[in-house]
């Protein structure tokens, strides 16, 4: 085996299929959408080269920055919610009764498809017949909020299912990381008289720091390119109040038949996501490698 893996030809041979797929399905389309962004194109007829006009228009587009703002809000909320997930995982990992069952329950939303979740929450939020407003009315709230129709709360109303959807995923990651910490370290700390809180914050947290930094990147990048629930629940409405970058891109390309401009927005989305990822990686870099 060693002999095989040292032969460059074989390495290339084994990498090639994955590399090809990546190239064809990811990198080439990325390049193409950057290129289409230079065109005035309705997706069907002739392409006309117009240089950077689409990109300049994108940078000056108020609606685009509005949607970018919403995406960043989502990123902030998903990052903050990581704290909650982390806390839950700490509790689950500390050998409480029924941890196994709870872990499975938290994972359920992950198993549902986005569209099913969206439909479920659309029903929950229904202004007249939804379970939420029916409950609010039954306890005497006279005019319960119009969750998906009120432009000032619609965004937050959608954040709830989005965060709920991914909770299980992050809890699972944290749980696995926490379970990986050798019992002996905890034991030693306990003998030295550390409290449960101290063990959590001083011993466990630093030990899973790298996992945490990975989840932060995942949460932020995932939020910036988020699309599914928003598209199904409100399609970015009312009047753009819940538009995010990806849904705006979709709208331009597939509803307005403005493929050139849509591609340019898609490319801007890529650039923004890349920059943010780099910044986050820089900020969360761990200098000293921990060994245990």
């Amino acid at each position, binding site marked *: 085996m060693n002999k095989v893996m040292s032969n*460059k030809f074989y390495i290339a041979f084994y990498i090639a299929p994955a*590399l090809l797929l990546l190239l064809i399905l990811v990198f080439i389309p990325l390049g193409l959408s950057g290129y289409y962004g230079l065109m005035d194109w309705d*997706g*069907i007829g002739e392409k006309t080269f117009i240089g950077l006009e689409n990109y300049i228009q994108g940078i000056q587009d108020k609606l685009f920055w509005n949607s970018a703002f919403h995406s960043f809000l989502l990123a902030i909320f998903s990052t903050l919610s990581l704290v909650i997930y982390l806390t839950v995982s700490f509790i689950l990992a500390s050998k409480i009764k029924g941890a196994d069952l709870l872990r499975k329950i938290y994972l359920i939303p992950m198993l549902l498809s986005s569209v099913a979740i969206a439909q479920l929450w*659309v029903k929950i939020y229904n*202004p007249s017949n939804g379970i939420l407003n029916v409950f609010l009315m039954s306890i005497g709230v006279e005019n319960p909020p119009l969750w998906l*129709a009120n432009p000032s709360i619609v965004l937050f109303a959608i954040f709830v299912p989005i965060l709920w959807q991914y909770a299980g995923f992050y809890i699972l990651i944290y749980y696995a990381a926490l379970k990986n910490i050798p019992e002996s370290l905890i034991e030693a700390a306990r003998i030295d008289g550390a409290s449960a809180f101290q063990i959590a914050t001083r011993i466990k947290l630093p030990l899973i720091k790298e996992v945490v930094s990975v989840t932060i990147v995942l949460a932020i990048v995932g939020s910036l390119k988020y699309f599914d629930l928003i598209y199904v629940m409100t*399609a970015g*409405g009312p009047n753009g109040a819940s538009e995010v970058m990806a849904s705006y891109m979709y709208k331009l390309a597939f509803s*307005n038949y403005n493929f050139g401009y849509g591609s340019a927005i898609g490319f801007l989305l890529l650039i923004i996501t890349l920059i943010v990822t780099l910044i986050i990686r820089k900020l969360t870099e761990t200098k000293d490698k921990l060994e245990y």
Partner: protein
Amino acid sequence: MGKKKTLTLLSSALALSMLLAGCSDSEEAGGSSGSAEKEIKFMHLWPEGSSKKHFDVVNEIIAEYEAENEGVSVDLEVLSNEQYKDKLRVLSTSGDLPDVGLTWAAGFLEPYVGGNMFAPLDDVIEEDLSDAFVPGTTEAYAMDGATYGLPLELNIVSLYYNKAMFEEQGITPPETYEELETAVKEFNDAGIQPIALGNRDSWTGSMWYMYLADRIGGADVLNKAIDRSGSFEDPALVEAAAKTQELVDMDAFVNGFNGLADEEAKSMFMSGQTPMYLIATWDLPNFTTNESVPQEFRDSIGYLNFPTVDGEGDTSSFVGGPGVGLFVAEESEVKEEAKDFASYFVKAWGEEAVTKAGVIPATKVDAGSLDLPEMYVDILDELNGATNITLFADVQMSPDVAQVHLDSIQALFGNEITPEEFAKNHEEALSKE
């Protein structure tokens, strides 16, 4: 030695894969010419699962056509609505459109006609179908003096209402805007939300605005504003927007309508929660023949032409428009056969579609001679006496402007913009064209 070789290998593998991808097209094109039989590729959007009746009618027509025309066969491909739109787009970029397919009118057609993808069908209409269509329907498929589609469906919008609920509250069905106001007020007083509206898909709100515009300013004012011989700042159109907001302020529409999909609003109407619902004739089967809807509900539904406003307006002027129509691909290898099939299809479609699938066809049918539910007969009669059919605004406009229109409608209904701003949004979008 390794590195260089590896690179060569990788890049040649990449080149090979691209070559292979490029090949696939030409292979297919070669295949069909071999057989003596001519094959017309036909793509439609009524899958057996969701539109069984449409599906069956299409199959019957195809079977009859094949029996009458030896040597010609029809190769069918069926997709559901959204997938159909996507696939048509993709096929158009690779020049692989089906010989005959379905298209929507006006705005949807534009890029395809601009790209020379659809064949003009004026010759077919003149020869075979000169007096077949309801006036105003083929026009929606016309562009630069040529007609690119043969309309199959026609939908007009009416105000459907629940007679039982009106009777229970002792309210008279509104024939004027003032009566509508009274009805709204009385239903609200009785704790019933008056009008079902799902404005998340804002074409629904657009129908309210369009009807108000039609009643206040006459049949032409909106069309003129869109084709630029008029303006959205026309007092009648601003007034229509103001009246729309007046209705919103009176709580005429269900709670949270801007976040509701049309389907959700419809279910409120169908479950007897709200007494009024403005929708087009595509929902007629639900109010007449659909067995899965309770008989009691179907019996209690009536329809009204949109009310007059301040005594103004012609109640036989409708908002509506043709739904889908047939196109023939310009690049088709069997263009003559395809045209012949399209024309045959349209002729066979009318009576079959209305009796079996409950579609109001765009071709003239003699309602009296057919066995139809009463509401169909009435509506077909209305159509025969229609003075005007204004095509749905978002269909009339180009996709960019339509989006501005739909967004502005949502904002208007949400009281986020004034009627003046509403007019200005449209003017700006249209002047950029």
